[in-house]
């Protein structure tokens, strides 16, 4: 059994899902979400994240396994009795109702009195700063305004759990960033548990308490954003989250917290063994571009260095982005902060690059 601590509000216990009886879309999902937590399911399309959300909402049934909400199995509870708020990708605001009617709908079906309804609708609209729009129709609102109404509608009946299915996908960049902030602020102020599905890793990193990275029907890693970024557990996560340099090689020496990897062109590098088991294993090492260093005074004593040829220098304002040829690959990226003492490398130059061994992670091949 999974560890069901006292604060586990939502629990997926060995959940599997298949649509066609031949392939599993979700393979053995175990996940427990604490009360008040903001958890994001992140992954490429087809990774099973939306299916998990739909199972939680009750629109899909789990082929195997249990889903628990506040300690209760909800596999056989129909969606309308689960009391879970949901924000849909296309907002799904009822087009034939005004904004106020849309918000009053969940209260009406719960048979609340008229004055109660009006008070709650007003409070919910004020909460998303849309108090003046109560009598508008959804079609008369902009995308961002519709998004706010959809959010207010999902919250107006005070659910303890809110699900969001790529709610910001249709908005432009600036509005999206603003809404990211709004949603996290609301979720934390109200203390509601939120499960958020997205394929946008920036969104996942900036909004969540924890991120579950999905691929191929499994959770690849479940961690807070900083851990996820700095300590990816496998190549998929390293590649999917943020920008990443990946070099292939074979493990030469393996200690408890350091390893020596020989790259395919013969170069040697120091790494931290994460996902390698023995000497001779194939591995992909992962280094974040901003952890790559080329100035000799910053290297450790006795560190292994690699030769790199500068291919391109891109000025991006706050950072310099340099594309290098390293170990036979010409897509190796190095990012340096635009500081007064920073050197602008020129194409054709050759430099030695290196890094702290703990920043270079030897992962699965």
């Amino acid at each position: 059994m999974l560890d069901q601590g006292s604060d586990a509000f939502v629990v997926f216990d060995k959940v599997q899902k298949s649509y066609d009886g031949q392939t599993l879309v979700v393979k053995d999902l175990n996940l427990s979400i604490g009360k008040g937590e903001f958890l994001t399911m992140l992954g490429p399309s087809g990774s099973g994240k939306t299916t998990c959300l739909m199972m939680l909402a009750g629109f899909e049934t789990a082929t195997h396994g249990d889903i628990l909400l506040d300690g209760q199995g909800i596999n056989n509870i129909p969606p309308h009795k689960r009391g879970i708020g949901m924000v849909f990708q296309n907002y799904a605001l009822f087009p034939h109702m005004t904004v106020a009617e849309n918000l009053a709908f969940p209260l009406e079906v719960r048979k609340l009195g008229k004055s109660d309804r009006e008070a709650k609708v007003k409070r919910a609209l004020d909460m998303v700063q849309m108090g003046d729009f109560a009598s508008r129709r959804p079609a008369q609102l902009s995308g961002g305004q519709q998004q706010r109404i959809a959010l207010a509608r999902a919250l107006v009946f005070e659910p303890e759990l809110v699900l969001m299915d790529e709610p910001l996908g249709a908005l432009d960049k600036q509005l999206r960033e603003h809404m990211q902030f709004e949603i996290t602020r609301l979720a934390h102020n109200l203390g509601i548990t939120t499960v958020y599905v997205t394929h946008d890793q920036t969104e996942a990193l900036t909004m969540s308490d924890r991120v579950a990275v999905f691929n191929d029907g499994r959770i690849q890693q479940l961690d807070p954003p900083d851990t996820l970024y700095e300590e990816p557990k496998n190549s998929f996560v390293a590649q999917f989250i943020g920008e990443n340099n990946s070099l292939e090689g074979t493990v030469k020496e393996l200690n408890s917290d350091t390893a020596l990897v020989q790259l395919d062109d013969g170069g040697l590098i120091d790494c931290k063994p994460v996902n390698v088991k023995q000497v001779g294993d194939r591995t992909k090492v992962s280094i974040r571009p901003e952890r790559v260093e080329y100035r000799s005074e910053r290297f450790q004593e006795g560190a292994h260095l690699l030769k790199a040829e500068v291919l391109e220098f891109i000025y991006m304002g706050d950072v310099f982005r340099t594309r290098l040829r390293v170990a036979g690959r010409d897509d190796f990226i190095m990012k340096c902060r635009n500081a007064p003492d920073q050197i602008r490398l020129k194409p054709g130059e050759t430099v030695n690059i290196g890094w702290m061994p703990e920043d270079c992670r030897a992962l699965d091949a």
Partner: protein
Amino acid sequence: MSDTTTDDSPQTGPVLAADGTPLHRSLARALRRQKLRALMLIAPLLIFIIVTFILPVADMLYRSVENGIVSETLPRTVVALADWDASGDTPPDEAVFAALAADIQIAAEEKTHTKLGSRLNYENPGMSSLFRKSGRQVKRWDLETDGPFMEKFLDIDEDWGDIDVWRTIQTYSPATTSGYYLAAVDMQLGADGPEMRPENERIYLKLFGRTLMMSLAITLSCIALGYPVAWLLANLPMRTSNLLMILVLLPFWTSLLVRTSAWKILLQQQGVINDILVWIGLVSDDARLVMINNQLGTIIAMTHILLPFMILPMYSVMQSINPSYLRAAKSLGATDWTAFWRVYFPQTVPGIGAGSILVFILAIGYYITPALVGGTTGTFISNRIAFHISTSLNWGLAAALGGILLAVVLVFYWAYDKFVGIDNVKLG
């Protein structure tokens, strides 16, 4: 100072194009060629529609009020009769009869008096034979010497002394008449203006009422039967729904006559359905159900025939409704029924409206099916129109009935636009 202000002041009057002509005129010139070309493209269709649709309809509508035949055939009589007091109880004087003799003599030469007779016979039965008989006699008279004519006319037929005959001639002497329209609503022109016909001669109002009620029944049963099918079409997986769509469209590819005859075979008393019911034991052999040659037969057959016109608009509307609306409603706490009734159904109303307008308007003017399976109680007003066009040859009355039918359809259309809004109709 004053110089700069005049230079900077906005131009008054029309905006000018670069060459100094007013902008709107040069725009119109630029667009003229385009408009002309567009007109040329639609010209064949436009001419076709004008010649085969608009002109015949206009002609028929004109026939429903046209009544030149009396004043053309009896010009002198009409003038002489103008002073006669139709509300009194004396027939017209000798001058009128002299004029009538002159008119009938010419008419008999040209053989138009029988036509007039049958026209006036619609209004006052018996006038056809009166004119035919008189024509034969009057031809032989000498207008100079044979007077006075009153006696002679009364000798031919004493009906010439009947006030009603003269009233009819006077009433229908203007070149246009409301008589056909009055007849179409079971009224007639009496001495004191329009009045209802005697109870036993009223048929058209009843027929109009029946046509409307049955069309309404057909529309409602189409909604009831079509809604679930349209829902299935919109929600089944692609392959299944394509197959279903073919089944829905299949009737379109079969002759109307074949489909109607098929219903005859199914519904008649010795037909398939009755046989099965008897075999099961639901109905005893001597109490077979009467399902054809009555209103039920017409409603069943026409519902079947018009069903695709209801399903297709509904389907196209339902297809555009995102399934996430239903999910949203359920996630907000609505039961399946509430989600359907409060969220899904209101969004399908435009489709129901479009289908209903289509089916109702088609049904109200339907002819073949009621004629074949309607018997005597299930016929429509259109069957009566056809009777007047091809059997009784009273085209004026047929045109008036058709005109009223057209007006009824337009009124329904207007009412629909007012209460539902024609912009809400989606045909696909």
